[in-house]
């Protein structure tokens, strides 16, 4: 499938800012399930900073913008050819030890009802079956409700709420997988979601299955990532895997506006 992506992030500042520095994970991963045809990142008034591929295989690119500015636009456009690998991440070069993904973070701390939910995997036939069980359990436990949670909502809080978005699903799945000794990470990317534009900027989880390697699970859509998915980067939680992390030298408030369009085109 050929996916066309147009992702615009606009930051508006009520007081002009003296400068902005950002760290991007906005370049599609290199793996067998996707191939970049063309890809372009523009930052209005921005100077490209250091760039490198980190130990997890993500392309990280720094940017800085000299102020004063009232508005910054980050625009990402490109085409990615994808194919279905049944969720298995193949041909992805990375060097971080998988055990490093057993650590919990503040957002994925095993609290509240998470331990009980995690126990559903007990008695599963094998690791892969356990991962599927957990992913379904997360889908069932938390209904997809935009606006029910915020950026800083923890996995335990979202579970308690019973409602959330893909970020919450992925956090909960990471937490319950780690509780079972399964290395887990949060993945951010894009999704071709017919008729549901708000899901185009998406997140899911990858769990480590010996023999297969990293396997994606998307509890929000009750499936494993296929040709509709474009993978950008990963981390222990949403904060680490964020496509854009930024900091503005300013005293005022910031308004954020994001639009993402993912379209399938003819080859």
């Amino acid at each position, binding site marked *: 499938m050929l996916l066309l992506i147009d992702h615009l992030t606009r930051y508006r500042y009520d007081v002009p800012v003296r*400068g902005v*520095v*950002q*760290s991007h994970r906005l370049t599609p991963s290199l793996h067998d399930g996707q191939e970049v045809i063309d890809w372009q990142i523009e930052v209005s008034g921005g*100077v*490209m*900073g*250091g*760039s*490198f591929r*980190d*130990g*997890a295989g993500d392309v*990280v*690119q*720094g940017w*800085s913008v*000299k102020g004063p500015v009232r508005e910054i636009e980050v625009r990402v456009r490109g085409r990615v050819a994808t194919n279905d690998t049944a969720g298995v991440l193949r041909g992805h070069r*990375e*060097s*971080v*030890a998988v*055990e*490093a993904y*057993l*650590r919990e973070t503040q957002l994925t701390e095993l609290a509240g009802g998470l331990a009980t939910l995690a126990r559903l995997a007990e008695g599963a036939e094998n690791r892969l079956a356990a991962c599927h069980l957990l992913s379904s359990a997360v889908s069932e436990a938390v209904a997809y409700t935009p606006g029910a949670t915020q950026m800083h909502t923890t996995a335990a809080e979202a579970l308690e709420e019973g409602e959330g978005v893909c970020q919450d699903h992925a956090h909960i799945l990471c937490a319950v997988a780690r509780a079972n000794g399964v290395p887990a990470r949060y993945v951010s990317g894009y999704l071709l979601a017919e008729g549901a534009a708000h899901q185009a900027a998406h997140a899911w989880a990858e769990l480590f299955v010996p023999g297969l390697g990293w396997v994606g699970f998307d509890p929000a859509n009750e499936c494993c990532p296929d040709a509709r998915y474009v993978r950008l980067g990963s981390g*222990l939680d949403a*904060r680490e895997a964020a496509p854009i*992390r*930024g*900091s503005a*030298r300013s005293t005022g408030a910031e308004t954020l506006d994001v639009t993402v369009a993912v379209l399938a085109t003819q080859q």
Partner: protein
Amino acid sequence: MTHFNEMFESDQVRSPYAGLQAWMNGMPAALRVQKQAEAEALFRRIGITFAVYGEGGDPDRLIPFDMFPRVFTHSEWGKLERGIKQRAKALNAFLTDVYGRGEIIRAGRIPANLVYQNEAYERAVAGFVPPKGVYSHIVGIDIVRTGPTDFFVLEDNCRTPSGVSYMLESREMMMRMFPDLFRENRIAPVDGYHEALRRTLMSVAPQKCQGDPTVVILTPGHFNSAYYEHSFLADLMGVELVEGADLFVDGEYVYMRTTEGPKRVDVIYRRIDDAFLDPLCFRPDSMLGVPGLMDVYRSGGVSICSAPGAGVADDKAVYTYVPEMIRFYLGEEPILQNVPTWKCAGTDDLKYVLENLPELVVKEVHGSGGYGMLVGPKSTKDEIETFRHKILKDPSNYIAQPTLSLSTTPTFVEEGVAPRHVDLRPYCLVGERIELVPGGLTRVALREGSLVVNSSQGGGVKDTWVLAE
């Protein structure tokens, strides 16, 4: 328990202290009191009143200075020096390995969870090799002595060990007050430390650095308990002392604001913790760091000393494996021994520890500064029982060691001169070369019988002499 007295061996004066006996005997009480007051006034005037790293306590409290020097012979120091350098080399090899292929873990010599699930392990720098492959540029190794030739390493400090300003100021003080001592004894100088530190920092300039590297010291600010040391070292080295807000990222580099405009910075000797270095990589709420710093670092635009992630080598649970690291990476036997350590995470060890609490010292794995620890022989039954419950609640959070019979050195006290327990923290510099100035920080437990040398618990400092051949 008998203790090794470093000056007197059954009423005979040991050779390293021979030059001090006449000095000690020739000092009437009145002169001693006067000199002590003089020293304190000097310390106060220069403002050296901070607590040693991580010890907490009142930051403005003066740490007592004891005028009686602690002395090593040339050959005693020779052995220590070889052992310290060996350890610093192995610790750095370990860090390069665990952020690379993790051979020591694959070989089954260290458990994976101890390293990769450690709070100090920074996934963000996995796969990145800092300049010259050095992670810990200043390794502070805490050493105790129990006999004429018996030295044990208590712990390693691979992040930003402090206290070196005490080593330098104590020497300065002694030379000012007792110049004759330095004419009569051949004492190796320590005043080359700041030059060696500067050399070390410059030798790890990043790949993209052109010309002479610009070095800065990054401090959390004047409210930090070690601020005095930060500004002291910056002065000595002739480099800028900066706070996070003085630095900014532009494009591929880090700059500092100066009156003549922005100046590119190549090497940052940071005295702030990993978590606060860069809100775009670590704690998003950090106000002490520099946004974007880690991207510049990982793309070779700046060096950070110690390297982010270095702390995984000085964890108390990892400590027990340092002898194994020396064998694994260097193919050598450790010159300095570890203190035998029981890990309460293991059931056999836990059983032993619980059965022998009155004889043991029990510490928190991540604790420091002499807090949260039990010194069995110095504790009441109640204290021991309370601690037993704490251990049972979370065994993996504790390690235990035998109560070591720390050596004593003569120390000036109210009644005159009396033996008090001491330890030693030398500062090993690792860059292109490994360097160690002959000396270190000797801490002394001023309370009679006390084995806790931490300044927050009644400890003081002494000048440390290494005699020339």
